């Protein structure tokens, strides 16, 4: 008896879902077809009960296996850790690569920040891939959540924070600080801690705060879709070409013709500064774009 009421509830619910959610497969359905499907679903649910029991049995087996797996993995890893080099000491292996970076980064890349010099010059290929990971993520989120071209698209009634006076006032003071700090971190990546990734994250957080405090419409007017796509493409394209040029000259033993400047001044260390800015824009736009997609599914 209980199952039947449950099934009824379920059918009611599924009707609601079919009405409220717009998926491609459901758009084509006729009403009669839907009724037939629901009847069929009741039959299937009765069958499914048996299936569910089967699943439960598998689940128990799975739980046992998973426990064994997890325990073994952790024990093995802990034993491994006990055999690794001791934490916090200078190891021999550091002498070859890491020590070289520490000794030569300043003269070879012109960056005060050894990590920035390492990721944007010595191991720049990884970082190129890394910014394209962000680009991939942005595209995947756009694929999954972008909704504004569908007919049934409507804005959801989110709780609108723009009516909140405190947030607006605080925002007026804080947002300029956050954004300028982000730009500062981006531009000083080769001199001090930070760089494109952290600066971009701060800048992006500022943009998100802006669109929370002053409304999504305001932010959308500020950063339109065209601007968004254009800046992202220019930043990534520049990154790609600049690094391509640097790899090409490096591999063919040509002079790159980019001076490293005086170490410590802001316009120094060759390509690292523009690359940091490009990376910063990519990170900013990715963060902001992901936020917009989760919030509204649209740039508007």
């Amino acid at each position: 008896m209980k199952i039947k009421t449950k099934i009824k509830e379920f059918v009611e619910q599924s009707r609601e879902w079919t009405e409220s959610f717009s998926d491609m497969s459901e758009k084509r359905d006729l009403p009669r077809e839907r009724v037939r499907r629901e009847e069929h679903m009741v039959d299937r649910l009765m069958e499914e009960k048996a299936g569910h029991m089967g699943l439960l049995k598998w689940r128990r087996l799975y739980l046992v296996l998973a426990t064994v797996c997890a325990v073994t993995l952790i024990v093995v890893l802990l034993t491994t850790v006990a055999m690794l080099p001791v934490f916090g000491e200078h190891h021999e292996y550091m002498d070859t690569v890491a020590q070289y970076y520490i000794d030569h980064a300043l003269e070879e890349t012109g960056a005060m920040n050894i990590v920035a010099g390492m990721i944007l010059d010595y191991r720049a290929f990884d970082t190129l891939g890394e910014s394209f990971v962000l680009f991939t993520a942005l595209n995947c989120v756009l694929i999954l959540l972008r909704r504004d071209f569908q007919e049934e698209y409507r804005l959801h009634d989110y709780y609108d924070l723009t009516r909140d006076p405190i947030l607006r006032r605080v925002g007026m003071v804080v947002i300029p600080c956050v954004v300028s700090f982000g730009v500062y971190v981006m531009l000083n990546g080769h001199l001090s801690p930070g760089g494109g990734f952290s600066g971009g994250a701060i800048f992006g957080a500022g943009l998100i705060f802006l669109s929370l405090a002053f409304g999504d419409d305001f932010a959308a007017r500020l950063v339109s879709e065209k601007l968004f796509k254009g800046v992202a493409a220019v930043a990534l394209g520049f990154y790609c070409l600049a690094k391509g040029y640097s790899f090409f000259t490096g591999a063919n033993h040509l002079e790159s013709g980019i001076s490293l400047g005086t170490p410590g001044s802001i316009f120094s260390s060759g390509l690292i500064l523009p690359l940091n800015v490009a990376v910063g824009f990519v990170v900013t736009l990715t963060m902001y774009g992901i936020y917009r997609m989760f919030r509204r599914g649209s740039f508007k």
Partner: protein
Amino acid sequence: MELIANFPFFSIILCLFSAVICSVLRGRGAKICTVVAESVLAILSFATLWYVHLLEKPVTFMMGHFPAPWGNEIRFGTLEAVMATVFSLILLCAVLGGSKFVNRDIFPQKINLYYVLINLLGAALMALIYTNDIFTGYVFLEILTLTSGGILMIREIGRTTLAATRYMILNLLGSGLFLLGIILMYDITGHLLMANMHASLKVLIAHGSYSLPLTVIVGVMCVGLAIKSGLFPFHSWMPDTYGFATPTSASILSGLVSKGYIFLLVKIMYRVIGIDQEILSVARNILFVFGLCGIVFGSVFALQQNNINRMTSYSSVAQIGYIYMGIGIGGTAGFAAAMFHILAHAITKPALFLANASLIEVSDDSPVFHDLSGAAHRNKTAGVFFTIAAMSMVGIPFFAGFTSKLLFSMASLGHNPAKTGLVLVILAISTILNTLYFIRTVIRIYTKRKGDLPRKFSMRAELPGWIAGVSLAAMNLFLGLNSRPVIELIEKGLLRFQ
């Protein structure tokens, strides 16, 4: 250094750049841009192959101004060049052949995003093939994972989303384990470049220190990449993933993505750990056993399916098993057989998935066998392409599948007799099972129903599909009839792989 030595690096940058361009184009423009980029990629890869073949030694290419232990580098020999050439051709064929279905399955406003992801996937594959740095390998492996998830989830029906979720969770677990391996490896060697890692590992092994950490490293790396490529106990994501994706994605996922991971694993075995090490032979034996299980179970599951796409997916489980079996047999012959099978399967599976899609299209969009009766009469070309690919899968002489099976059995001889026996028995069993389920399907699609007439197709919509089908079939026949030079190239490449 000649300009031609830059081509591998150009091909990676080209794919990345064309992805950026596609992101600002509209659907059609993005498609044209992608097709052009992939064609150029194929030409560049072929030129690379020509170059390294004439040069007769692998080339190391500095990525940047700094030499080996400090900067990044890529390295390519004949093996890498063969892989890159075939992979880029298949990428091109899959994009061309599936473009009709892409337009059907995906919102018009999102088509350009699809091509962005395809380009990124191409770049990641090329980078995985060419890289000589293990951390670069990890980064591009993640790009490969995310883009392959992306081209899967772009078809917006619930089951595809569910399949994508499971695919992503398992794959991310795999990448986590792989990263753990890299971290441990860095902790004991202090290098990230494969050659230097190998040198310091050699010293460590000679001293006998760190034996447990090394075992753990080999273990987690193998498990991580096995999960990602869908070796037998971890194959559960495969059928849903391939079955519900749009045909282009299904072909790319089954034909290329899992092969990219396997290639990386082989590269790590050769270049980082050293193929003749004791630890590796244990790991290879385990992979061998799971590969055999995969062959048997994959074929049995495929036999049980009632849905042509799922059947083809389960047959992929079996084929991945073959590749791991080749790795397990070991020796240059075994690895060459595995590499050849990577090529053969990468050519055959996309053809099957594309033909499946065309057959399903003329059967009221139903992939169930019952509805597929006579599909080959309704769409004759798709029937022919399916039959050719199925014959290659079964292992009929003159097709690529036959050559790879021959290579497997030849490679197994002269090693361990138990292994030889196992390989031969399993090959026989799997051939029988393959024959059973493919013959059943071929008979089914050629059984005429009442009133089955050839459908009329518009030339314009079908032409790319035909081009793709014909070129895939031609490549298949080429590998089957003229396999000697390809095998020689692979063997030469393997000998100089280290």
